[in-house]
Structures are given as C-alpha cells and as structure tokens.
C-alpha cells in the first residue's frame, strides 16, 4: 500500500489542502467525542422517533424509573406487611422501629401499610383523572381545530370557560354536595374539570397540521374525515397528548391531596391525601409524631417531581429548540477551544 502512495506525484497544493483540512476539520468521530454526542444505541433505531427521543432523554427516563418504583411499591408493598391499613395495629404513635417500619398513627394504624395501600388509590386516581382529562382534551381539541367554523367557535368557548372557572373551588362545591366524596368521585370530577389546557394546546397544534400537505393529500384522495383525524392527525399529536396527560396527572394528584387534606374526601378511604388529613387533624406535628405526616407528604412530593422530570423530556420532544438549548454551552466551549468566535446564542 505505502508504495502506491509514494508513487503518486507530489502536489504542493494538495498537501497544503490536506494539512489545512486536518487542522480545520476534525473527523466526525473526534467532533462527536468533543461535543459529547454519543452514537445512538442500536435498539432505539427500531423505535418510532419520538419514543426513541424519549428513552434517550436522561431526565425523562429518571422520572419514569421513579414512577415505576412508586407503582411497584404500591403494588407489592401491601404484601410485605401483615397489617390491615384500616385496623389498629399497635399502640398509638409508636416511633418507627422494627415492629412498625414507619411507626403508627394516633389511631395505632401502621403507617407503612397505609402508605402502600394509599399509593394504590392515589396513583390510580391521579393517572386515571390525568388520562381521562387528556382524552377529553384530545377529542375536543382535534374536533375544534380540524372542523373549524361554527364547531370551533362553540368548542373554543367552552374550553375558555373551563379555563377561567377556578378548578379547586368548583370541585369543592361539587364534593361538598355529594358528602364525603370517594376517591372515584374525586377522580371523575377532576377529569371533568381538567381538560382545558390539553384541549387548547391540541387545538392550536391541529390548526397548524390541518393545512399541511399530507392532510391535504388525504383529503383529496377522498378519505373520510374521522379516518384523517385518526390516521393522519392523531399520530402527530402523540407527544402533545402525552404532555397533556403528564400535566393533567400532576394537577390531579395535587388536587386530590388538597381536597382530601381539607376534609372533603371520604375519611375512611386510605389515600395519601386522607393520611395527611388525619395527621393534621390529630395534631401529629404538634405532638411530635413526624412519622405520621412526612411519609405521605414525601410520597406526594416524589410523585410530583418524577412527573415534572417526564414533562421536561416531553417538552424537549414537542419543542426541539429546548433540547438544542441543552447542548449550546458545549458548542460554545467547543468553538472557544478552536479559537472561533463563541458568539452562539
């Protein structure tokens, strides 16, 4: 091989070019290393692009892992405990220890058992209401955006009304009237009042999609409207739908906790919110029984934080400029090292 290269006639310009190229443009591998861009793992290439973007997003995956841990805890936690969450399991206000991992409440109920059982209901209500609200928002948002005209006017009016009606006070009115709202009732009410934001974002997105070529071509081919909505528009709406779902779930979990905390829930149901309610009305803090109040409070906080992490990832998928923002300081440093103006912004 080497003698073939030597055999080539020597060209000064070519050599200079080659040298200039070597100093100016590094190979792609070098660039990728310097910008800390990792090659995509093989298995993600088989996923749809938005899902692949999600599983390679560290924030989003951290959130998913935490949520999975919470779900596993509330599914299998009750099996690790011999106590009944509604029955007296020991003396009142026993500090955490061997018998009771997280201590007992003033009624002598085991906090660990209640926490695990409560997770089942709280997470179900939160996710259930979040999914339902996102589905209602999706249906209304797509219809308003796609059909336009009179339909849009009427639907947008209701979206705006539900957005200006203060959620919690409205739920308080309904929950007071049904007397001791069960978790199911709370979930239904939250779903019925929480679809405003997803409907609004999905409507805006549908409006921009409606005039795109692929929708027009489907229309020209004589596709039926519901098929266009389902096959052409909905798949492009998936990340907005997931975003609405995550935000709706956060809102539902917070609102459920708030409602039960102020005593509107069914006090006999075991949820994180009612645990806080009982701890507060039994003056757990004032009597020094911190273990009665912090486990449910901590569980709600961790759930909220995990959902926020997932939402960050979804935001970066729906709005790619946000993701570019994450890389920009690396690009700045890179340019500076190569002596180029670092005026990127």
């Amino acid at each position, binding site marked *: 091989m080497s003698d073939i290269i030597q055999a080539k006639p020597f060209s000064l310009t070519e050599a200079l070019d080659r040298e200039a190229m070597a100093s100016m443009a590094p190979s792609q591998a070098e660039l990728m290393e310097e910008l800390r861009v990792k090659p995509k793992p093989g298995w993600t290439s088989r996923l749809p692009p938005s899902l692949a973007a999600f599983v390679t997003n560290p*924030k989003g995956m951290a959130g998913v892992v935490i949520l999975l841990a919470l779900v596993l805890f509330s599914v299998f936690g009750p099996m690790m405990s011999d106590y009944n969450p509604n029955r007296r399991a020991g003396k009142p206000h026993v500090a955490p220890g061997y018998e009771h991992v997280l201590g007992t409440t003033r009624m002598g109920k085991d906090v660990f058992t209640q926490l695990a059982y409560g997770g089942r209901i709280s997470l179900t209500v939160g996710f259930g209401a979040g999914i339902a609200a996102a589905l209602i928002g999706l249906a209304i948002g797509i219809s308003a955006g796609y059909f336009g005209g009179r339909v849009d006017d009427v639907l947008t*009016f209701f979206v*705006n*009304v539900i*957005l*200006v*009606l*203060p*959620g*919690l*006070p*409205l739920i*308080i*009115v*309904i929950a*007071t*009237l*049904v*007397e001791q709202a069960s978790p199911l009732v709370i979930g239904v009410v939250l779903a019925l009042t929480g679809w405003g934001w997803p409907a609004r974002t999905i409507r805006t997105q549908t409006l921009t999609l409606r005039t795109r070529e692929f929708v027009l071509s489907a229309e020209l081919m004589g596709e039926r409207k519901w098929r266009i909505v389902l096959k052409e528009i909905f798949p492009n709406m998936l990340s907005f739908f997931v975003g609405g779902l995550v935000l709706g779930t*956060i809102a539902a*979990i*917070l*609102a459920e*906790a*708030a409602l039960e*905390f*102020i*005593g*509107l829930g069914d006090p006999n149901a075991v949820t994180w919110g009612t645990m*806080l309610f009982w701890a*507060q009305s039994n003056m757990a*803090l*004032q009597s020094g029984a*911190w273990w009665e*109040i912090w486990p449910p*409070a901590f569980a*709600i*906080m961790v759930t*909220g*934080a995990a*959902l*926020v*992490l997932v*939402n*960050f990832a979804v*935001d970066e998928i729906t*709005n790619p*400029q*946000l993701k570019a*923002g*994450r*890389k*920009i*300081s*690396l690009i700045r440093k890179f340019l500076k090292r190569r002596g180029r103006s670092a005026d990127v*912004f």
Partner: protein
Amino acid sequence: MVFLLRRLAFYVAALFVAITLNFFIPRLMPGDPSARIIASFQGRLNEAQVEAIRKSYGLTGSLWEQYVTYLGSVARLDFGISTVQFPEPTASLLFYGATWTLVLVGIAIFFAFIIGSMMGIHAAWNRGRFFDSVFTPINVMLNAFTPAVVALLLFYAFSLQLKWFPLGRAHDPSLMPGFDLQFIGSVLYHATLPVLSIFLVSFGGWHLGMRNVMINLLNEDFVILARAKGLSDRRVRYRYVARNAILPQITSLALSVGFLLGGALVTEQVFNYPGLGKFTFTAIQSRDFSFIQGQLLLLTMSVLVANLLSDIANVILDPRLRKG
C-alpha cells in the same frame, strides 16, 4: 378596542355560565341543601316551617322562577344568610375573608411573577449552563409539590420548631386594625410564612414558561437583527426578547389566579389564617352551602377581572392588538 369588547363579551358569557352552573349543580345532586337542615329537626317541623326553610334557600316555585330569583340575588351580591355564623349575611363574611386572601395571594403572585420571570430570562439567556441546568428543574419540581405539603413543612420548621413565626391569625389580636406602622408590620409578620409557601409552589411555573418562550424567540430574525445592529446584550435581552416573551406570561398569570386562590385555601388552613380558605373549611364542615357557592362565584369573578386586566395590559404592551 374591538379586541377588548370581544373579550368583555366573553367574560360576561363566562360569568353567566358560572352562575348557571352554580344554580344547577345543587339541584342536580341527590338531596338538596335544605333537606339536611330539615332532616336535622327529625320531623319536628310543620308544613309551613319546611316551606319557609325551602324558600330561604330559593327552592320554591318552578325551576325557571328559582333561576330568575337566583340571578336577581346574585346581581345584588346577596349570597344568602350564613348558617355557621348565623345571622351574618354570607356576603360580608366572604368579603372579609377575601380581603385577607387577597393580601396573601397578591403579595405572593407579585413576587413569584417577577422573581420567576427574571430567573426564566436568565436561564434562557444562559441556557445549558449551570444556572439553567440546575435551577430550572429544581424550581419546576417545587411547583409540583402540593401547597399542603410545602405549607406543612414551613409551618413545622419555622412556627413549631424554631418558633420564629406565629401559629396563626392575620395580625396580633391586641392591635386595633388601622393604617399605622405597628399594625401593618404585624400583618406582614403574620403573612410571611403563608406568602412564602404560595410563592414557593408558584414561581417555578413562571420560570419555566418564560424560559421556554424566550428560547423559542432567541432564534427569531428580529433578535438576530438586533444583535447585528450591535445593540447591547442587556437591551436585546429585555427590550427585544423579554418584552415579547412576557405577553403569553401575562395571559397565563391571569388564568393562574384561580389555581392560586385554590392553593391559598389549603395554605390558610395550615397556617390558621382567617382568609377565604379558613372560612371555606368551616363552611365545608358545617355544610354551609350558601358560603361554598358564594366563594365559587366570588373567585370566578376575581379570575374574570384578572383576565380583563391582563387583556388591557396586553393591549398596552402589544401594539398589534391595538390595530386589530
């Protein structure tokens, strides 16, 4: 002007929907509010007395007559008689509580909006750097911690353990309300923790909103032109980008008023603060429907007023709306 009139028409319509909802919800539920009162007398009431109670709740006559009567009383801001603090009209209780809630939520929104937006501007301008990658997630996570939990944490740490702040009330009970330094100082001292807890759960939203809108604007042509003209960073940041990014923020500020007032209900409950939330809590326990319905209407009205104000602010800040 056309824009403002159109918005105004919408708010009137929305208020009408809220009033109608408020009228129909109790009537759609099994057992009307008066049934509970009547049942508590265990049949010791005669026909006329039952009728009088039902009348005081506006439950006599046809549905249409009831509705018209209800609209009339709402127009006169007559929300009925409170059953908890008996002869007191609900309206005066509502307005007393609302004053204190407004103190809390007003101060908290003011600081949350300004500090959150400034942080968002800073994070967007230096995106990907230390401040953005550490504080943006933390601030937004704070946003997802329930008001109840944050309030409990603060109450536990600063009122119970360190005893820096009082255990309740809006001001020192020995002081006469008035516009003197001592009274205002006492009010601020008592409001510190509730305001802080509302602030903590809300400023992250402004941070994230401002940051995301700013980042999208930074790549717009007008920003590149402004930089190409050699304007100072400061000027581009505040007069060009932030000024445009603040418009959607103002709209969502108005929409969030309802959410914040709802959160204040819980905060007041924890800090034993005599605002709307504290009264709502007692009203819930004693099933005082006139109060609970009144608070919904009052809060809806305040959200609508906030929205109208935000529309006016938008018209002032955005010349495009003035032409339209």
